[in-house]
């Protein structure tokens, strides 16, 4: 057998040493902090907008779900991570910043824009994980978007609430007519992690070229939580706050809540 030259191997190690840098600086890899990248180095921005159907969500409005149940919303939050940009024509998939986590909170519009650095190319699909991948659910104290003070961490059965919808409805039998869906569970049968692939509007692409930005607008539709494929009626199920079958059903519903409405390349 021919002896393999050592040089490429050593150069690879050299690269790794440089890339790894001082590991202490990079140890907190969750959320915004510690990545070493200035926040403005993005060339792709994904703007999430919480909506009901196609109208921007308001906590002061009353809506009617698919089952004719009136309700209002008081909290709507979800995690997103592991973004992939896809070109189905060439079969290209680009995995972006796999270790960055974002908590989109309807109550705080500063959280709606997800800034990412992508490889310049032309893409026609986007995919991302809704929730926090299983490893971060078992890795101890986290920071940034995953800080437990965000109110998205279960303390009695360790793990993240991947998505949360709370509000009130006259049909709810709970105190104060509340309803609350805290959807979590990352292991085995109870895994609610979903990674939908979302189409772009017909004929539109996300075109990322040097020194330019692409902005993808995505609606997150609360109405989707209640139907398709699973019936979730507030009257029958005003509360889901543990991992299990209902959480899985709701997660399948909300995995269909995203629509790309617009792409701007400039």
């Amino acid at each position: 057998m021919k002896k393999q030259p050592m040089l490429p191997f050593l150069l690879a190690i050299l690269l790794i040493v440089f890339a790894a840098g001082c590991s202490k600086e990079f140890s907190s890899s969750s959320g915004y902090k510690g990545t070493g990248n200035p926040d403005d180095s993005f060339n792709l921005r994904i703007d999430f907008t919480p909506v009901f159907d196609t109208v921007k969500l308001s906590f002061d409005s009353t809506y009617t779900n698919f089952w004719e149940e009136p309700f209002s919303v008081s909290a709507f939050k979800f995690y997103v991570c592991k973004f992939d940009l896809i070109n189905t024509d060439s079969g290209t998939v680009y995995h972006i910043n796999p270790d960055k986590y974002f908590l989109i909170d309807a109550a705080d519009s500063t959280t709606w824009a997800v800034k990412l650095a992508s490889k310049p190319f032309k893409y026609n699909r986007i995919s991302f994980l809704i929730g926090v991948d299983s490893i971060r659910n078992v890795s101890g104290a986290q920071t940034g978007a995953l800080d437990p003070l965000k109110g998205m961490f279960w303390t009695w059965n360790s793990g993240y609430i991947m998505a949360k919808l709370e509000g009130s409805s006259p049909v709810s039998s709970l105190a104060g007519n509340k309803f609350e869906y805290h959807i979590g569970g990352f292991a085995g049968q109870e895994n609610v992690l979903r990674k939908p692939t979302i189409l772009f509007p017909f004929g539109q692409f996300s075109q990322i070229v040097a020194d330019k930005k692409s902005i993808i607008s995505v609606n997150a539709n609360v109405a989707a939580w209640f139907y398709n494929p699973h019936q979730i009626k507030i009257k029958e199920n005003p509360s889901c706050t543990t991992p299990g079958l209902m959480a899985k059903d709701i997660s399948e519903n909300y995995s269909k809540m995203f629509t790309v409405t617009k792409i701007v390349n400039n």
Partner: protein
Amino acid sequence: MRKKLFTIAVVVLLSATTMQVNSCKKNDAVQQSNSLTFTVPPGFPEPKYNFGNNPLTKDGFELGRKLFYDGRLSKDGNFPCSSCHQQFAAFVTFDHDFSHGFNNQFTTRNAPGLFNLAWHTAFQWDGGVNNLEVQPLAPITAPNEMAEDINNVINKLKADNIYPGMFKSAFGTDEITSQKMLKALTQFMLMLVSADSKYDKVKKGQAVFTLAEQKGYTIFQAKCASCHAEPLFTDLSYRNNGLTLHPDLKDYGRMRITNDNADSIKFKVPSLRNVELTFSYMHDGRFYTIDQVLNHYSTGIVQSSTLDPSLKNGIPLNIEERSNIKAFLKTLTDSTFINDKRFAQPQ
């Protein structure tokens, strides 16, 4: 030619590594003068905690110790961790079935002793907490325990005169986050190692069992050690040990976490180290004496579908065996541990 390139590459690689090391030097210098060694006692297995994620330092440990004894981690200031975890009782709540919490409330389970936690991979009687670092979040936020919000805790620490400096010494920055607070608390809890009881001294050849203790040890190994496995005196499994369901609390234990009927009324096997000090016993503290516990195992086992197979016929014990087992169990009391000044309330 190839050899020359190889040499150049090695030189470049070495100098690059040196550069990297230099860039980390400042941090490392802080870490080294400050580093704290975790010693695995003789005969113990390798710990399960990932120390790489949270390198122990003296300042980190001292910060964790201060936090552990600080009532400000609770809503009204009255319930530090140490209110339910008392050192003189191996960090259980001494002589209590349930512990006291915010607004005259009680906990719903018996506070477990805190020691040898580096060997555990799950916490709570039902194993619902999957990492020691996030364990303190449960009592801090439980409305019937410390009843506080994590945001409030962090704000109180930030407003304090002393904490920012301690966080800086421990972590190199005075930024106070829940992550750093939890890692510091974890450092303190990891260092709570109990391995200097008479039993340990006998194992090391520094002491000798009395005849009763020796006989008790032999019976223990035959009849108890399949669950209370040495040297931790627990196999860390979840088992139904034949208790009746508590009529009010209806605590199904592990089943609540796994949603699996096969886990009904299963609880984590507790360590028997320091058992003389950690009464009351069982997840709900229903037994106050070791005699009551031995009675339960010899004649009180309740049959059910999830009962541990090893307890199907109970554990028959005659009077002499009981007396010897009790003598042996008392050799697990670690007076070095409960008197260790490092773990006491900081002055």
